[in-house]
């Protein structure tokens, strides 16, 4: 009887979303009057037990197998499914990331149990015996669904950025579990990696200067590039821009692109359709530069300038250079 938090990591490096999962799992365990336990997959993650203890896990289960040297959705799913079968927790919670969803989908498929992804709330009267009522994000978060998970083990992922991680140090024990992995689950282990060139990425940048259909062409992004460079940020874009072939999809902010959370998001010539908004809404501040005062992005932003981005953006760069005296 427990709530089991699945710790996502990459070759032993903790994925930050796991801290929210540990916190939410601990809160749920508390209301259920049970313990929060954690699971790490692969011996290269054994050191993360101390992090789990810092966030309140009373037991950290460590799934071991010689093949678990890197991420592999099927191997991880099978390893976790075996641990879950032997522990019978009441709730299993994973992270609402690309890999987190995939691991949890693999677990649920292997146990033939339902799974509710991207949960933002859990029923505060849940005690472990009844179906678990949740609220989960649909449409990338622009619509919510009240749902019920009716199964002996409730399997969920926590929507990213919904729970602020808080520590609750405890003394924990570790429990090594040797799992049996059939050759069929080993194919999908990462075979090779091309490391990213160091630098600021869209997902981690503190400033994102983004352009939409209003920019008009690939070449017209040059002033946005210049402003981003002056602010140590990166350039993003809307789906209309990628669909027009003006920029690569890696620059796309949105439900099917990258979710960003910069200190400021400067949205130039972007109307703010739902698909785009859900990728940008976690930004701490949003400044819209748009000709249309009624544009969706203008009405939702904290700050706006009404005007032609082709004139406003170069003027901002010029003002920055003037104040820096260069």
């Amino acid at each position, binding site marked *: 009887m427990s709530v089991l938090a699945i710790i996502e990591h*990459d*070759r032993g490096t903790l994925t930050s979303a796991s801290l929210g999962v540990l916190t939410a799992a601990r809160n749920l365990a508390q209301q259920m009057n049970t313990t929060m336990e954690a699971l790490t997959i692969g011996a290269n993650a054994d050191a993360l037990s101390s992090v789990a203890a810092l966030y309140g896990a009373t037991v950290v289960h460590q799934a071991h197998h010689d093949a678990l040297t890197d991420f592999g*959705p099927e191997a991880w799913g099978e390893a976790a499914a075996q641990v879950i079968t032997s522990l019978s927790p009441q709730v299993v919670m994973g992270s609402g990331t690309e*890999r987190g*969803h*995939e691991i*949890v*989908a693999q677990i*649920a*498929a292997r146990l*033939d149990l339902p*799974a509710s*992804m991207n949960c933002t709330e859990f029923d505060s009267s849940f005690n472990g015996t009844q179906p678990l009522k949740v609220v989960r994000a*649909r*449409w*990338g978060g*622009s*619509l*919510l*669904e*009240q*749902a*019920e*998970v009716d199964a002996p083990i409730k399997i969920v*992922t926590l929507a990213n950025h919904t729970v602020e991680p808080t520590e609750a140090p405890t003394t924990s024990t570790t429990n090594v579990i040797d799992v049996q992995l059939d050759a*069929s689950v080993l*194919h*999908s282990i990462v075979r090779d*990696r091309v*490391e*990213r060139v160091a630098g600021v990425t869209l997902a981690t940048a503190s400033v994102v200067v983004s352009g939409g259909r209003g920019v008009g062409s690939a070449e017209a992004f040059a002033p946005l590039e210049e402003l981003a460079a002056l*602010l140590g940020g990166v350039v993003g874009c809307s789906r209309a821009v990628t669909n027009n072939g003006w920029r690569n999809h890696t620059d*796309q902010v949105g*439900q*099917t692109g990258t979710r960003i959370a910069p*200190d*400021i998001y400067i949205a130039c010539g972007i*109307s703010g*359709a*739902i698909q785009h908004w859900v990728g940008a*809404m976690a930004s701490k*501040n949003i*400044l*819209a530069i748009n000709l249309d005062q009624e544009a*969706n992005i203008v*009405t*939702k932003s*904290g*700050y*706006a*300038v009404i*005007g*032609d981005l082709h*004139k*406003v953006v*170069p*003027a901002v760069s010029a*003002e*920055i250079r003037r*104040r820096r005296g260069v």
Partner: protein
Amino acid sequence: MKILVCVKRVPAPGARINITDDGQQVDTAFLGFTVSPHEECAVEAAVQLVEQHGGEVTVLTLGPAEAEEQLRTAVSVGAAKAVLVPIEGQDWDPQRTASAIASVVKDLESANGSFDLILFGNESADSCGYQVGVRAALKLARPMVNGAKGIEIDGTSAKIRRESDAGQDIYVLPMPAAVGVKEGINLPRYPTMKGRLASKKVDISRSETTASVGGLKMIQLQRPPERASNTQILGTGPEAASAIVDLLEELGVFK
């Protein structure tokens, strides 16, 4: 090679998603429908692979009769065959959907031979369940990787490229395999005139099936709380540059 692409018909929302009074579904009175974006790219990926290596693309959807429209769209950009798994009323839950797809695929394969690749979208745009492909692949005993931003065929295996926080990860799956595709893998083409004609003529086969209800039950949809937005207008035109830089300084992003 034979490739199956599973697609979903979803509403195409603009600036706001409205729900019906009973809270049971998205109000689509004023919305068009489309193929869910990741799957639109999966269709394109399949068509490109067949152009390189020969073979044919079959597209399948589980949905209402109207989802024929999305199957025809896929045919208009290069799919050769289309299969509708008709359902009535509400969307099926993920377990039920995956079981139904797996059982139809088994029937198709016993009649016409195995698919080398089965492509899914990474997740559907509307329900965001992230699991139908994974469940169906397991039932069909196919190795499966989600999040694909590149697929190359090398003899009897599929090389999958996928982005991670650290860079690009490479997976190699022996075929037959299943892959969840993400938008950005390609830029889907527009239909040609020839494609449009083919899409009108294609014979859409219907595969009725049943599957038992799973354990995830939708109770009601609700709109998220509106973020209080008192937009502060900093100015109009390039004259606002000074106010913008003041704001950047205040936020500490301009030093």
